[in-house]
Every structure is written in structure tokens, then in C-alpha cells.
């Protein structure tokens, strides 16, 4: 009976080989394409974000990869990255390269709206979902383009929600005259518009100073003096980090003080402000409590302290220089978390299916970046930052703390007005 069992065995093997696989055509790796700016103007923002992505991908790969529901198993991640040298034109070419030549499964944009802009039409044209990390310009999102989702911060028209709402609370503190000073670039101008609208709509407030300055303004002495001449009770200032440093320095050099001062990057880039010696000007002032400065309790993923630790260790182990932990590093990690959790819901790697999977996370995913909520056009409505007041500690600016003053459901203290 040896022949029979031999035939049997062969038949069984043949049958097994010919029957459809349990996991249909699972790829050997998930290719994630990313751009980063290794040099040029955007490098300071972009590099930490990219390093965080590498850290995230490496962490998953150590455990066998990322779990994809459609294949029922973990698949290793391959991160394909190109340096766009802060050039939007090169970024467009390289995005195209990732799609057409490298044929990535998941396409990430570079950080900042300026660099994301080049990728948006390219992704749409190739019907590829663009996982937009920090490119928050409302221009990128429209009802007729399903190929984009914003992951790590609220779209710019919603971003200043807390301060715009707080404007209505200002008369209660005794504030009557308001001044607005902003950088005319897209990101900061949108915020100024939101705040201006709120001030003009409130009959108890008067807008006494409203000025936009070019993005490359680095000297604020004249402007600070002009604002003071208008004698506002409150000054709301919106700028990029370079502007903020210059602005705070001008306050220092001119000995100026305001009863209520709001700055755009006061908390988001606190460590940069400290390195540049202007953090003491931020005491008792207000800023949006960025995720990297205000610990939230996540339901998924690491919390702020653990992420900071892990990130800084990774940077050390891999001998990277000049990479600071801040909002951008957090954003990179957030992107990773969203990808991870979306793939856990995705039935395949089809781009629109991936979009559906990302949308299932909306309203459910809560990470250290805050609640993840998507509007139908793919823009982020969650991750709204609360308004905080920066309070000096025993050593002044070195051990500052944050009092959340708005919205009421998150508030921890009442605002201290006027600033001492």
C-alpha cells in the first residue's frame, strides 16, 4: 500500500498548493513614502518629524511589523524617504517618484503647508491618498477631493478656535481695547482673520491696532512702540518662530509690557524661546497649549513624557545632531499612530479603502495629540488646542507651568489679569 499512500500524499500536497491562500496575496512589506527637508528653510521643522517616523517604524518592525486587517497578519514596514531640500518644485518631482516609480502603498507629505502644497495635486492626479501631517492650509481640502487627510493638527481656520472664543470672555476681565499684530503668511494670517472677526463682532471691544507685516520681518522695535502708543489692554500676536523671537526680544529691549499678551508659538516652541533667552517675556502671557507642552492622557500610544524619553534616546543612539523634541517630533509620531490604527481597520491597501479606514478612527482615536476628528473633506477638526496662561515657577521661566483658561471643560484656573 506504499504506492497508494504516496499517491495520496502527492494529491494532498497538490490540493493544498492549488487551493486559494488564506491571506490573499499579502505583500512582503508595506512601503511608506515620505519626504523631508534635510536642508534649507524648512529643515528645522521637518527633520524632527521625519526622525520620529523612523523611530515609530523601527519600533513596529522590531515586533514583526504593522498589523493589516485585510491580510490578517503583521507585515514589516519599509520607509522610503527623499530629501526635498525645502524646494517645492523638487518636492513635487519626488512625490511623483514615490508614486510612479517606487509605487508606495502609503504616501506621506513633508511637514509645513508650503511643502505639502506641492504634493496635494500630485496625489490627487494619481488617485493616491495623501496622509498630510502638518500641512493645515484650508486650501488643500475640498469636497471634491477625497485623496487627502490631515493627521496631526487642526486645519488653520479652526486652529485658533480657543483664542477666538476667548475673545468674548475678554470684556469680563475688563479688557476694552485690543491690538492685533500678525505675519502676513498663510498660516498666521488665517489665525489673525479668525480673531479679528471675533473682536469686530463683539460690541464691548474696540480694535485699536491691526497690522500685518511681511514674513521676513526680524525687527519689531518700531512695531512694538507703535502698538504701545495705541494703548491696548490686550495684544494678540501671530508669527513664525523667527518673528516671535524677534518680537519678544523687542519687548525685552524696549522694556515693554502688556496687560494681556497672546503669542502664536509661545508654548509650541517654548524650548526654542528658552534657548534664545526670551522665555522670561512669556511669563503670565497666553498661548495655545500645544501637545508637546501640555500633557494629555492618551488612550492609544505613548504619552508625552514617554515619547520624549524614547525620542531623545533614539536620537542619541543614532547620532543625530541638532534634532530637538517639539511639536514636529510629536506630529511624526502621531502620523505613525494614525497609520497603525488605520491599517488595523483596513481590508486592503486600496487607496479609498485606506481613506475609509482612517475615517473610522474619527471621533474614536485619542492620542497624546488630542482627539482625532475628521471633517468630511479630510481636514482635521479635532486636536484643538486649549488656551493656556504661562505661569512662572520658583525659578521664573525655567520651571514654568501652564494654567488652562479656556475652554471651560478643560480649564484648570482663572486667567490672571492684568499680568503682574
Amino acid at each position, binding site marked *: 500500500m506504499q504506492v497508494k499512500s504516496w499517491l495520496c500524499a502527492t494529491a494532498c500536497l497538490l490540493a493544498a498548493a492549488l487551493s486559494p491562500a488564506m491571506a490573499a496575496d499579502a505583500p512582503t512589506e508595506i512601503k511608506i513614502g515620505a519626504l523631508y527637508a*534635510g*536642508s*534649507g528653510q524648512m529643515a528645522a521643522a521637518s527633520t524632527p518629524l521625519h526622525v520620529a517616523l523612523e523611530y515609530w517604524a523601527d519600533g513596529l518592525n522590531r515586533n514583526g511589523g504593522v498589523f493589516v486587517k485585510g491580510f490578517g497578519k503583521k507585515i514589516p514596514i519599509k520607509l522610503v524617504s*527623499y*530629501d*526635498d*531640500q525645502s*524646494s*517645492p*518644485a*523638487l518636492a*513635487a*518631482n*519626488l512625490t*511623483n*517618484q514615490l508614486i*510612479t*516609480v517606487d509605487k508606495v502603498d502609503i504616501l506621506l507629505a513633508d511637514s509645513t*503647508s*508650503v511643502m505639502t*502644497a*506641492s504634493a*496635494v*495635486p*500630485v496625489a490627487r*492626479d494619481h488617485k493616491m491618498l495623501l496622509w498630510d501631517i502638518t500641512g493645515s*492650509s484650508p*486650501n*488643500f481640502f475640498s469636497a*471634491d477631493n477625497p485623496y487627502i487627510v490631515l493627521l496631526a493638527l487642526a486645519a488653520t481656520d479652526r486652529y485658533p478656535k480657543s483664542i477666538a472664543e476667548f475673545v468674548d470672555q475678554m470684556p469680563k476681565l475688563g479688557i476694552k481695547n485690543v491690538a492685533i499684530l500678525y505675519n*502676513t*503668511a*498663510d498660516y498666521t*494670517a*488665517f489665525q489673525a482673520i479668525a480673531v479679528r472677526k471675533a473682536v469686530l463682532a463683539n460690541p464691548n471691544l474696540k480694535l485699536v491696532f491691526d497690522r*500685518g507685516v*511681511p*514674513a521676513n520681518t526680524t525687527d519689531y522695535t518700531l512695531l512694538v512702540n507703535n502698538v504701545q502708543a495705541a494703548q491696548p489692554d490686550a495684544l494678540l500676536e501671530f508669527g513664525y518662530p523667527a518673528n516671535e523671537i524677534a518680537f519678544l526680544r523687542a519687548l525685552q529691549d524696549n522694556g515693554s509690557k502688556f496687560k494681556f499678551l497672546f503669542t502664536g508659538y509661545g508654548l509650541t516652541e517654548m524650548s526654542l524661546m528658552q534657548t534664545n533667552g526670551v522665555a522670561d517675556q512669556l511669563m503670565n502671557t497666553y498661548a495655545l497649549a500645544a501637545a508637546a507642552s501640555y500633557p494629555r492622557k492618551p488612550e492609544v500610544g505613548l504619552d508625552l513624557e514617554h515619547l520624549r524619553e524614547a525620542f531623545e534616546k533614539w536620537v542619541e543612539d543614532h547620532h543625530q545632531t541638532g534634532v530637538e523634541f517639539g511639536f514636529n517630533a510629536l506630529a511624526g509620531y502621531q502620523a505613525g499612530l494614525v497609520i497603525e490604527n488605520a491599517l488595523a481597520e483596513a481590508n486592503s491597501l486600496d487607496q479609498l479603502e485606506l481613506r475609509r479606514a482612517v475615517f473610522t478612527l474619527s471621533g474614536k482615536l485619542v492620542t497624546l495629540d488630542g482627539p482625532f476628528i475628521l471633517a468630511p473633506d479630510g481636514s482635521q477638526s479635532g486636536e484643538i488646542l486649549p488656551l493656556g496662561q504661562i505661569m512662572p515657577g520658583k525659578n521664573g521661566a525655567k520651571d514654568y507651568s501652564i494654567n488652562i483658561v479656556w475652554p471651560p471643560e478643560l480649564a484648570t484656573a482663572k486667567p490672571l489679569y492684568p499680568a503682574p
Partner: protein
Amino acid sequence: MPKAFPREVAMVILPLLLLFAILPFVYDNGLLLLNFVVFLVLAQGLNLTYGFAGYLPFGYVGFFGAGAYGFSMLVTLAGAPPLLAVLGGGAAAVAIGLLLSPLLRLQGAYFGLASLAAAQALLQLIANPNLSDLTGGPYGVKLTLPYTPRLIYILALVILAVTMTLVAWLRHSRFGLQLKAARDNPIAASMAGIDIVRGRLVVWLASAVAAGLIGAVFAWRASTFFPEAVFDLNFSIFAIVFTLFGGAGTLAGPVFGVLLLYGLYNFIGVSAPQYFQLGFGLLIMLLVLFFPQGLAALFRRKGAA
């Protein structure tokens, strides 16, 4: 017209066009190919001004941006069909060229920096928030046009063909010789009865049109962009370096410059980018110090010997 003109067209222009017509079927990154064509046009446009009139416009990107915004404004404000709007972009660039033509009175470095200042001024004007209703201001441009990459690519090739034919014609025509004479020795040339001012203006406007048309094509393909993206100084610098590298005043020189250097630029973006700025700066310096006539001069010398 000596036989050199048709021969040059056949040996340089046609093969180049053929190459770029075939490449999309072989290499998938169509956007990269389009950008190659954009730089080929920009280099030849710059070649017109520098090679024939001796002006080095550091602000050449101003025409490119003018074309891009001329196109965008016609599409968004007047609802013009894209092909017509591209012509509009070219017209916008010519208008800017006319506006800036007094700069042609300046010599040397004055001209170079004044044209740079003019391009910057145009950028700052367009990007001003007060003008956002017209130009989109700092918030950028967002065009909703149908997706037609093939048409756009063919249009770019047509623009390239026309620009290069113009350069080739100038190389062998009396007008071109007059221009070169005026460039080398203006006093003698004007004594010989050459209308220098008009000649320069014509070449200046021609190079403006080239940049404007290809800028419009770039805007069409990009469809979403911030003002800085189309007024990026790198467009000027690259065009200048590519042309210098290959050899200004020749037809094939700028082509080699673009293919070699722009190819290197993209390749490096893919592999070892941190050193790009450093390497590029060194290349520029070596070029000016040791090969100011570009590669083409090397070949010419070899041929003559």
C-alpha cells in the same frame, strides 16, 4: 540663410524633441520629465538674453512667475480655457518685460541685481494680502482644471521647439550677428549702424515670452501653489548655471547643462542631498573660474585643433 541653420535644427532640436517624446513611455515620473522641459526652456530663454545681448538677468524668474500668475488669474477671474490662458501668461510676461525695459540701460552688475530686485518686488506685490482677491495673496492659488498631463506635456514640448528654433535662427541670421557684435563692442556696432537698443529689446522680450509661456504651463500642471514656489530664485540661478555650464550663445550647450546638472540635482535628491548646496556652490565657482565659456568651448577647441 546658410545651411548651418537647418543642419542644427536637424541635429540638435529634432533628436531632443524625439527623446522627450519617447521618454514618458519608458520612465513613469512624468512630472520630472515636464520639469526637465521647463528647465530646457528657461535655459534657452536665458541663453537669448545672455548669449546674444550679454545681459545676465538674475531676476529671470520674474517672467516665469508673471506667466504663472497671468495664467492663474485668467483662469480664476475670467474663466478662460487653459490653452488661451497659457498665451495670456506669455502676454503677462511680455508686459512685465516692457515695464522693466528701462533696466536695459544699465550695465553689468547693476542690471543683474536690479532685475533680481524687480523679480522680488513682483513677488512681494503678488503675495501681499491686500491683493488676495486678485492673486490669492499669501494663501496661494488653487485652480480646478481637468487633469490633462499629456496635453500639458505636449504643449511644453511645442514651446521648447519654438524657443530652440528661435535660438538656432539667431545663431545664423544677420540679426543675431548684429546682436553679438553689439554685445562685444557696442560703440563700434552702433557706428556700423546697428540699432542696438531695438535689438536688445526684441531679444529681451523674446526671452520673457519663453519664460512666461513655460511658467503658465508649470502653473497649469501644479494647480495648487504658493507665490514663493513660482518666484523661487533657484529657477533663475539654475537656468544661469546650466547655460553657463553648457556654453552660452550655443544651441546645444544649455541642453547639456540642463540634462547633466538638473539630472544630477534630482538624482542627489534621491540619494545624498545634504551636500548638494555645498557641491553646487563649488561647482559654480569652479565653472566661473576655470570654464566661463562652458562645456561647449571645450568641444569647439577640440574641433578647431
